[in-house]
């Protein structure tokens, strides 16, 4: 299928996931017990919870929780990937060694351990996904830098730059356009998108764990709902509570994020 098809599909999926967050209500609507556990048919589009509040609001608030932090995390990883690629083109072994050492140290610990330690230090009033998302991005950066530098190395690294210089291109144009724009783009975009997806999943995971232990979430205030609330509600369907529609919505949103990642990956793949 054409690159444009994947691009369109990816952007559409991303849009569906992230943009609605900007229109999320600050608090859930007042409850209406007469509408409790309504199916999507009875209370379009997604049905209601045990208090008769629309699951749409859960989805919107969840989207708001993840939207900006996950985008920021993606951008951080993209930035580091670009740096990694460019360093590989400088031909400086020392710089490469330093970068690698930094990467080894940073990448050596299981990410969740670091994330939990970051969460541990956050005071309840400053609960937000940002610090966790950025830590995750920093931990993902070494991998992205490695891959980008490998791509740059395949290009020929410093020799590639020299060759283009010989053609009279400015360093600025070579680095920004020929290396980043034309060659690093696929790996940088994919890494960024994968990190975005991982941050979304991370938020769901952390919120779900907190919900399960009736603890406040590390990633958002208690007035807000996360997509994990949908999954937790949906989980009760296994205990004969009529929340199957919540499970479907939760899984659907997760699938949408995954779809967006796959599509973007396909869209930017090298020719």
């Amino acid at each position, binding site marked *: 299928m054409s690159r444009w098809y994947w691009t369109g599909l990816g952007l559409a999926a991303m849009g569906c996931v992230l943009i609605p967050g900007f229109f999320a209500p600050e*608090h*859930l609507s*007042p*409850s209406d*017990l007469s509408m409790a556990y309504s199916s999507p048919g009875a209370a379009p589009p997604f049905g209601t919870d*045990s*208090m008769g509040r629309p699951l749409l609001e859960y989805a919107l608030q969840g989207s708001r929780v993840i939207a900006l932090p996950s985008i920021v995390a993606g951008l951080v990883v993209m930035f580091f990937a670009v740096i990694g690629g460019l360093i590989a083109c400088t031909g400086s072994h020392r710089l490469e060694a330093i970068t690698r050492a930094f990467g080894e140290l940073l990448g050596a610990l299981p990410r969740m351990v670091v994330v939990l330690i970051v969460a541990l230090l956050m005071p*309840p*009033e400053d609960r937000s996904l940002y610090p966790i998302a950025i830590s995750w991005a920093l931990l993902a950066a070494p991998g992205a830098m490695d891959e980008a530098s490998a791509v740059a190395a395949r290009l020929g690294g410093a020799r590639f730059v020299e060759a283009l210089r010989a053609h009279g291109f400015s360093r600025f144009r070579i680095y920004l356009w020929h290396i980043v724009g034309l060659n690093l783009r696929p790996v940088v975009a994919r890494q960024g998108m994968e990190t975005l997806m991982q941050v979304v999943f991370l938020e769901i995971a952390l919120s779900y764990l907190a919900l*399960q*232990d*009736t*603890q*406040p979430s590390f990633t958002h*205030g*208690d*007035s807000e709902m996360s997509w994990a609330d949908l999954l937790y509600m949906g989980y*009760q*369907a*296994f*205990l*004969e*509570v*009529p929340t*199957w529609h919540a499970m479907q919505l939760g899984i659907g949103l997760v699938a949408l994020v995954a779809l967006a990642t796959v599509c973007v990956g396909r869209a930017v793949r090298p020719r």
Partner: protein
Amino acid sequence: MMQNHKLLLSLSVVVGTLALSTGSTLNFYEESLPSSMNPMFAQSMVDNRVHELVFDRLYYFDPITNELTSRVVERWELADGGKAVKLFVKKGIRWQDGEALGADDVCFTINAMLDEGTPSPIAEKQRAVFSGCEVESKDTAVVQFTQIFHNPLNQLGFYVLPEHKFESTAIQPDDAFSNRPEGTGAYSGSMGRRGVTFGAKKNAHHEPRIGQLSLQEGGDPLVQVRTLLNNGVQGIVAVPPPYRADVSASDELSLKSYDLRSWWFVAVNQDKPYLKDKRVRQALNLILDRTDLREKSIGVKPGEQNSPCEFISGPFVQTSPYYNRSIDVQPRSDLEQAFVLLEQAGLTQTGGRWHYKGQPITLRIGMKAPLNNEAPDLLSQIGNQLSAGGFDRQEFRITVDDWNRQVLTGEAEDYDMVVGKWSFGLVEDVNPLFHTRNGGRGALNIFNYTNPQVDALLAQYQSAKTDTQARDAYHKLHEKLDDELPYLFLWKLDTKSAWRTEVRGNTIAPYYYWTAVDNWKYSP
């Protein structure tokens, strides 16, 4: 739902093929995990119930006949003209580690309570009762009181601690004893990550019939009830009202009364400038629509007969002699009157939101997290009502740990309001809740509320010589608090347990719950 059942079935089949039969331990869900297994540092009813399993109170009331009796004292006699009692400790009783129980343990416990180095509000209370204790012989202790009591044995309802487990009488809460206690009770307890396991301990004075009990933290009440129906657990200590019908509808389960006086409140932080003026607190009290809250979070239908949830207007349940029945409850909201009060207090309403000195007010409301199981969604319902009353709000679920460390210690100044619950037995001493914090008094004063008139009334209660003096002091206190509103009083919620019918002889003692655990039987 069909898909749901199919998936449920297939999952169970997968698990079933991997699994063998399950154990026969008696599992039950508690409201939360205990915060400490050292009776000196009990901070919740969960703690109290756990202590009843692991330790012995010197004297206790029989849960059936209410006879005041003891498992550890052979006999007693009055001494020092009635200002002391001589206790003869039963021989042959052993601590769970094998050491013998003696008079020295009884005196150690009293001396530990009298030691100022023991930072325990419970001990602080006992200091007004006991003046000392002397070990006369291995099995004889003389307990001295600060005054002559008409029924002195009634004062001896404290748990006995093992002297050999502590270095000094200054007992600290951060000691390993709080998780791995040694008692003389029917069960030894060991706190794990998600629960507490209790192993039966046969003793000269205990013969438990159930080999092992396992306490687990009950999460979502619906999941608790379903698990109970599936025989995944055998009991739930507190079943929220909305789920009691499900329990009654099954012959495999029985709903058991648990006599306890619990009332719910919203404490208001008067150190916040916009909450200092009592008219603002009165307005908040008028904004709350308790009938609506009760319907949505407790599931009480309007006009329901004998509701398990009864509104209160002061710090006592309506069955209490201290409840001042001349003070009316506030079942419905009255926004009009509330707004008048807010304007009188100098607040201004702009764009539908209340402002104080030009700044919009955002109320930070916290609630003890496990309460959400008993009254689902209460926090956001209160938030909705305050929002309808013109206040922005932020909601916070407070963990049990933070509740004990911050809220109960008066360190939760970040919050404007916190939603909580207090439980009482026969003794309804509310002095620790409302007295100014000083010299050990007001130990549970959440927002460090201070009011000289209230302190005076509490002092009157404390020094009351007759029942009537005590009652009058608390009736006046009720009236004063209804005007001052350091708390917005919500309701009394009765407590019911649910047990599977395979559990036999399960008499539930008022307040202490497990007093008759020796008679409990379980044959799966």
